[in-house]
């Protein structure tokens, strides 16, 4: 199965806010994609709890796998982006 490996770029890691944006995108794409850290158990990319359980911080290398390569590329692009970049000084800003 096709795989992609990428380091999490978001400053706060793949937790609440960046995790939610990632999971929402995985849902929107609507094709099965799994995500894992190293050799650990893989979880569905569209599961918030699954993604949070990875405990990925900034720089953690994660592996995505799935049959739809376009979906993998889209999700890799999202992970390679600092999703906290539109918040300043740790202050949340409405979208």
């Amino acid at each position, binding site marked *: 199965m096709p795989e992609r490996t990428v380091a999490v770029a978001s400053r*706060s*890691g793949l*937790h*609440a*806010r960046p995790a*939610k944006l990632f999971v929402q995108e995985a849902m929107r794409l609507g094709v099965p994609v799994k995500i894992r850290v190293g050799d650990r158990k893989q*979880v569905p990319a569209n*599961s*918030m*709890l*699954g*993604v*949070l*359980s*990875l*405990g*990925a*911080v900034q720089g953690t290398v994660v592996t995505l796998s799935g049959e739809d390569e376009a979906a993998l590329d889209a999700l890799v692009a999202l992970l390679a982006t600092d999703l906290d970049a539109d*918040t300043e000084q*740790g*202050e*949340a*800003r*409405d*979208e």
Partner: protein
Amino acid sequence: MREVLEARAVLLNEHAATREEAVERCGRLLVEIGAAAEPYIASMLERERSISTYVGEQVAIPHGLNREAVLRDAVCVVRFPGGVDWEGERVSLCVGIAARGDGHVALLAELAEILLYPERARALREAVDVETVLKELA
């Protein structure tokens, strides 16, 4: 998670009419146990409005972004047996988090790991005594 959760930070029978009230209750509790300073509550509310902290299994994880208001790493558990409307989702358990640095990521991973088991999530949601909560989150 047990190290950051003390018995007095567990409330099992709270009521909140709105999501804001529920988040405020969690924040107030974190202040009461000395884990956070007053401004942390406003930051929790702001964070919640920016993007919901609902994670699934009727659980939300309110937390603030102003780390300087965190006095020590701690979590609180607040149960709302009547449920709270959370942007269309039902929340019956809040795990409020106060953490400096990256501590929250490990905490969240630990909590998510537990909630991925539906029977453990249910045991937490339906807990009627503090011991059950402490045991489930051990």
